[in-house]
């Protein structure tokens, strides 16, 4: 057991993957000498060489497209997209090529490409540096999409993503990069649970679903709710596609109430899918419609306004009040 920051855990995960399989190569802008703008690849070029930690020209479509070519040749490329908002130039290569090649080739070509994307807001950055693009990828058949929420998960999930033979979009909650946590480096790879949700906290009254950066916020909210006598079960999705509906539905059948939270815009976001699917699967158990606590349907706002846009403890608890059918006024009377 070591105490590592989220970034260190990712760095260690990459190192382990590279040691484990010499076909693993890293690609991206500034990932070499600089170690990436978030230093996730710090020291790796020095230790593994410029042929395995590859600084690329400044062109995201080019990065993903050549990663596909390398995968054709038997490599296992791990691509770093510098910030979430810069993945869109690569969208065509991701959606029309990476996602579909296995199907297109009738199973002959495997493209085990991992695309690491630091995602989400809360770091006080200008436009394009705080996006949450997961729904675009989740809606795209052929991709798998995962997001770790703790240093421990970061460590093993990254290795499993790299070992997976399908393309994986690996979303890293960048505002948690400095978060510290215990990491057991014996825990990986192959815990076999990359696509299983994690019950981060058990509870009986409400199922609160989160992933990536908001898992911590959700846990904080659950702690706060405890004081009000509400017992929240917090589920960390881990895998956004496929979603582990079995774990979710079991919880919802128990609690009868669902709150879903994410930073991404609400309209046609992941919350919609989770709400719709859980309503289908658990309709007769539901006391209230699933409630979504999400970013607004606006471009990511300037940093001085981002605290409004990002779901926080209060907004999540407001969502909890809704599914408990408690108004703020009632709460005042009761409390």
């Amino acid at each position: 057991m070591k105490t590592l920051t989220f970034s260190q855990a990712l760095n260690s995960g990459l190192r382990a993957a590279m040691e484990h399989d010499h076909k693993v190569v890293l690609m991206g802008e500034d990932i070499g000498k600089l170690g990436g703008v978030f230093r996730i690849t710090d020291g790796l070029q020095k230790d593994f060489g410029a042929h395995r930690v590859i600084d690329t020209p400044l062109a995201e479509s080019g990065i993903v497209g050549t990663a596909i070519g390398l995968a054709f040749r038997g490599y296992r490329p791990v691509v770093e997209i510098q910030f979430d908002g810069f993945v869109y130039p690569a969208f065509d290569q991701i959606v029309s090529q990476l996602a579909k090649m296995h199907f297109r080739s009738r199973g002959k070509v495997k493209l085990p490409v991992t695309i690491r994307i630091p995602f989400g807001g809360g770091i006080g950055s200008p436009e394009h540096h705080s996006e949450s693009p997961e729904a675009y990828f989740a809606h795209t058949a052929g991709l798998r999409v995962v997001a770790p929420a703790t240093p421990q998960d970061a460590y093993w999930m990254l290795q499993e993503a790299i070992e997976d033979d399908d393309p994986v979009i690996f979303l890293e909650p960048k505002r948690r990069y400095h978060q510290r946590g215990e990491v057991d480096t014996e825990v990986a790879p192959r815990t076999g649970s990359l696509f299983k949700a994690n019950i981060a906290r058990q509870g009986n009254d409400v199922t609160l679903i989160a992933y990536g950066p908001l898992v911590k916020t959700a846990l904080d909210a659950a702690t706060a709710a405890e004081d009000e006598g509400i017992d929240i079960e917090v589920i960390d999705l881990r895998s956004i596609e496929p979603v582990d509906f079995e774990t979710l539905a079991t919880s919802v059948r128990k609690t009868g109430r669902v709150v879903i939270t994410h930073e991404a815009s609400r309209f046609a976001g992941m919350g919609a899918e989770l709400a719709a699917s859980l309503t289908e699967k658990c309709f007769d158990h539901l006391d209230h419609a699933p409630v979504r606590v999400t970013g607004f349907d606006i471009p990511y706002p300037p940093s001085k306004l981002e605290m409004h846009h990002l779901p926080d403890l209060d907004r999540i608890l407001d969502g909890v009040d809704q599914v408990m059918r408690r108004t703020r006024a009632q709460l005042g009377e009761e409390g």
Partner: protein
Amino acid sequence: MSNTFDVPAPAGTGEYLQIIGPDGARHPCEDLDVWVSDIDQRKLEDLYIDMACIRRLDHEGTALQRQGELGLWAPLLGQEAAQIGSGRALSDEDFIFPSYREHGVAYCRGVAPQDLLRMWRGAAPSGWDPYEVNMANQQIVIGAQTLHAAGYGMGLKLDGSDAAAITYFGDGATSQGDVSEAMVFAASYQAPVIFFCQNNHWAISEPVARQTAGYIADRAKGFGLATWRVDGNDVLAVMGATRAALEHVRSGNGPAFIEAVTYRMGAHTTADDPTRYRDALELEQWAAKDPLDRVAAHLDSLGADLEELKKRSTQAADELAAGLREAITTMPDPSVDDLFKNVYSHEHSWLDEQRDNYKLYLESFSQDAEVTR
């Protein structure tokens, strides 16, 4: 009516390397002769037969589409020399990233008839096993495959391999950002990649002058690529340039670019009607530069037995055609299982559930036969 945005007058075909002229006369070509010095009469006859075969292949493709056996077909008519000249220059280890029109290159790779037609029939998203023939499946998104070739070339370099990657694309494709980026990457890593552009003068209805003010080959030079501009209807020139480019990239000198100046004699696809946008005259001019006729004329001048050659080539083409027809009639239709297979390479809880539900739904029709709608 202002003509502000009319297409600029075509830049003309300009200078290019040529060995056998349209009339069959052979010209000395300093740059390329050395690369085709081994091509004797016998080998040239073989190239002729290859071209005749893929012309027939193309003809069958169009015919099968007309008969409803194929959903679509993209004719290669006129581009036989470009495809055979380059395709026959490659070694088996070289890996090919084609677009959708390279039936002739696939033929060089020995792709089986069924595999060649599968996609066009709508029976599968693609045909062959890329690793069996070292050729990726057809690419429909213009230019996307060029980046795959650049990446594959990077892999070859990492492996210390002697092989090369080659990618085929059209004149229209040169406008796509991906193609420029592919040149940037290949040049940045000095990867063994050949960019083979069949400039057939048209991107559906748009003339090449809409895509570029100068020559396509010059575009590549600006990216630092070694560049050849050749008569794409001259099978020897194309072969010579491809061999020269292969030698260049295999020697670690970085990527190369070939512009093969040719012409799309047919429609863009069987869904296209080129009479809406181009002159019969232009077609005539290019008909006079036919890739097969010039080789025949040249062989004639060498004293070859043309009659025997045409007999041989017709026979080979007939066999090929028979194989294609046989392939179509025996090709099984895909099944419902093929819908859900290969989306992922292993278990996917959500999709597996969808598949099972859909199968139950389908079964409900057969089981409750009395319930009809």
